[in-house]
């Protein structure tokens, strides 16, 4: 059914696109939808284009895994629209024809300006394309069971058809269609979350129709001092390894993990094959185990048993009674064998979903029933509430295995629902003051880029040219703010709903919203996944459209130093759409596995650094010169991109130690945005004086 609904959505998008593409004749039709779009439609299309998978999947995932800190993206993404509405919308509409560099060109009419502005649109679009493509792959992987890259290729192909075929008209209606769907179904899902309330004993269905109930991790008595087990639940347990996470500043032990070998009962399912229950799943064991296998057959009083090795987290209590809590693991042996929770990895043996609320304030007992939107958040942020936050750690074990552990850490609602889990702003024990300062700068830098980036995003800027008047541009921006603001409030409920439902895939935060939908049934899951996919299509269409306009309209004429005919421009626009789409496919495959919201943060930083100073100064400072604008745009692009390439996160991607990266923080905005502003002021003053002489 999922696949059917999914295909229905994709066909609807293609239908909308081909039906509207007939209107997209001529250069004005292709690049600006003949300025004929109604402001209401344009407003929802703004929302549909702007609310990318980063907003839908990324933020919900970050809130589910890191609590309040994920919501900071919602706040920043919306706040940026204030700049777009009050400062940029109407003047941009008045000055431009098709692209943002038109507006610059009309004010200064110097060829260099259009060239640098076109270049910046191209760079920002590509940066923004990467997370969208990554998101597409993430969605398709669990839906169809096909590899990540197929999702990326699928999105790329459909989008190329939309943009190259119908230009801005089709793009607008695809975004309108998507914006409507997104708002509607985010609201539906939120109502479902509120209706369900919180139940600490709740078991929701995992993986839909398979009838697999969500799993509660076992907790057994243990004495850390004597290393002895106080349980009958484990058969013949032996501790094979102890792994503590050492705090890098205090040198003290943080969470401690035990690798325990024990025997689980098995049933024979054929010659040399056995099946055993592990964490609610029934993986198969095929004799002989083979070299390097982490299991062996061990009969117990004549009954078959399998000895496996799995991992447990030590929970120390103040009363002296310790516990071991089950963790999940992915282990890669030196021989290249992969094990999940101690058994060979297979379609029958995958990681379980995680997250839960295990305690709520006493006055509610164990379940709340349906809750209002304010009450739900107030209960979740209560000091008595206990939320199990999914965490992970990777290391090489004593036996040379690459181990990734996924475990739950109990947190009070007070800790979960306030800033600090993803962006550590408070100084931790033993932390050098410089690190605290850098953490804070990183956070300020991100919030600055989000605030200033929105108004400078190319696929947002081109939408001002599809409406007939400056007034319509303003009105559609207001519709956008209303719709997008509502959506971002809903993201909070999607995120907390996912952790309440225990719908968190430990290896990908991006799947939290669709898995939340799945806990309500396959139909909602199929719908949400379909919408997530059209969200990618809508945003990517806008980006490719912006890039296509930039090349065909701004760069081509300038580089060739001659004026092209309208027909040639449209042809070039279509060709560029295909090429940029193909580049997007390649980058989407290369950046697999990064959180999409995080990547989008970078795109905002590049946009804010390259475009915003030019826009603001063009509008508000009479002494601005063409040279100042060009220098500022180039400085913004080069500085922000360079700082990102030298950041700790990218350093890790290259395979180096992130702490040795030349740039100490991940977010470049706090350096590159002021730098770009300084350059525009400096160069304008110097060149202005020269011109006066």
């Amino acid at each position: 059914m999922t696949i059917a609904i999914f295909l229905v959505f994709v066909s609807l998008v293609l239908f909308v696109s081909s039906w509207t593409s007939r209107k997209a004749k001529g250069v004005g039709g292709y690049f600006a939808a003949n300025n004929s779009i109604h402001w209401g439609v344009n407003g929802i299309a703004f929302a549909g284009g702007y609310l990318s998978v980063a907003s839908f999947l990324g933020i919900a995932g970050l809130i589910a895994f890191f609590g309040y800190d994920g919501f900071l993206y919602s706040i920043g993404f919306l706040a940026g629209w204030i700049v777009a509405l009050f400062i940029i919308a109407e003047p941009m509409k008045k000055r431009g024809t098709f692209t943002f560099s038109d507006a610059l060109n009309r004010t200064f009419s110097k060829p260099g300006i259009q060239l640098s502005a076109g270049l910046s649109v191209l760079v920002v679009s590509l940066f923004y394309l990467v997370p969208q493509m990554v998101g597409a792959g993430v969605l398709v992987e669990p839906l169809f069971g096909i590899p990540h890259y197929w999702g990326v290729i699928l999105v790329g192909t459909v989008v190329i058809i939309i943009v190259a075929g119908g230009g801005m008209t089709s793009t607008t209606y695809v975004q309108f269609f998507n914006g409507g769907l997104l708002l509607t179904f985010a609201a539906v899902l939120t109502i479902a979350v509120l209706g369900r309330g919180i139940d600490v004993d709740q078991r929701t269905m995992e993986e839909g129709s398979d009838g697999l109930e969500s799993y509660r991790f076992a907790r057994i008595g243990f004495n850390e001092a004597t290393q002895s087990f106080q349980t009958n639940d484990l058969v013949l347990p032996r501790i094979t390894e102890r792994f503590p996470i050492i705090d890098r500043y205090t040198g003290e032990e943080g969470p401690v993990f035990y690798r325990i070998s024990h025997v689980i009962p098995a049933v024979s399912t054929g010659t040399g094959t056995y099946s055993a229950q592990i964490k609610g799943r029934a993986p198969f064991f095929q004799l002989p185990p083979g070299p390097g296998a982490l299991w062996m057959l061990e009969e117990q009083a004549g009954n078959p048993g399998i000895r496996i090795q799995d991992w447990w987290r030590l929970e120390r209590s103040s009363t002296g009674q310790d516990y071991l809590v089950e963790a999940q693991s992915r282990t890669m042996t030196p021989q290249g064998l992969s094990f999940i929770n101690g058994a060979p990895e297979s379609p029958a043996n995958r990681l379980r979903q995680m997250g839960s609320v295990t305690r709520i304030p006493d006055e509610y007992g164990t379940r709340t029933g349906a809750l209002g939107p304010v009450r739900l958040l107030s209960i979740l942020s209560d000091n008595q509430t206990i939320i199990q936050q999914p965490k992970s750690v990777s290391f090489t074990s004593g036996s040379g295995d690459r181990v990734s552990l996924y475990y739950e850490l109990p947190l009070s609602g007070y800790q979960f629902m306030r800033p600090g889990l993803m962006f550590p702003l408070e100084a931790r024990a033993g932390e050098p003051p410089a690190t605290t300062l850098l953490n804070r700068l990183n956070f300020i830098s991100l919030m600055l880029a989000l605030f200033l980036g929105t108004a400078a995003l190319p696929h947002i800027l081109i939408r001002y040219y599809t409406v007939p008047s400056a007034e319509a541009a303003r009105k559609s921006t207001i519709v956008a703010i209303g719709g997008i603001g509502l959506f971002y409030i809903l993201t909070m409920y999607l995120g907390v709903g996912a952790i309440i439902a225990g719908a968190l895939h430990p290896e990908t935060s991006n799947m939290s919203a669709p898995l939340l939908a799945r806990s309500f049934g396959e139909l909602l899951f199929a719908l949400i996944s379909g919408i997530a996919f059209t969200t990618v299509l809508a945003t990517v269409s806008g980006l490719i459209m912006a890039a296509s306009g930039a090349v065909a309209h701004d760069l081509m004429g300038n580089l060739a130093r001659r004026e092209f005919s309208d027909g040639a421009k449209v042809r070039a626009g279509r060709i560029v759409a295909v090429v940029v789409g193909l580049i997007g496919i390649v980058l989407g495959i290369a950046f697999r596995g990064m959180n999409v919201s995080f990547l989008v943060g970078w795109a905002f930083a590049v946009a804010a650094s390259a475009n915003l100073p030019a826009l603001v100064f063009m509008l508000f400072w009479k002494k601005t010169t063409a040279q100042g604008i060009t220098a500022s745009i180039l400085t913004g692009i080069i500085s922000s991109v360079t700082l990102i390439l030298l950041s700790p996160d990218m350093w890790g991607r290259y395979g180096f130690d992130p702490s040795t990266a030349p740039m100490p923080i991940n977010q470049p905005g706090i350096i590159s945005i002021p730098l770009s502003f300084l350059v525009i002021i400096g160069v304008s003053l110097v060149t202005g004086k020269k011109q006066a002489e």
Partner: protein
Amino acid sequence: MAHKNSLNTMGYEQRKSALGVRMTTLYSVVYIGFVGVSVFRPQWMGVRAIFGLNLAIAYGLGLILFAIILAVIYNYLCKVPVEHSGKQQDADGQAFPSRGDNP
């Protein structure tokens, strides 16, 4: 008449632009306040503020709602004709039907 109209348009545009800058400044101050508290007084964010919500949630949701409210107010103010320009208003109250802005 056309001359007079364009002068008024100029006044209207300048007024609107000044209004936009003032509203952006107002919102920026509230936004900077949010970032400032998060960075320098993070412990305040956990304190109960209103309706049983802590300051972090109340301030965050408040910022989103504040943006929507400001947008609506701005639109309302932009519709109101500039002082002394009541005569240029057309029947449906739109001060400046801006079809003429089309490129």
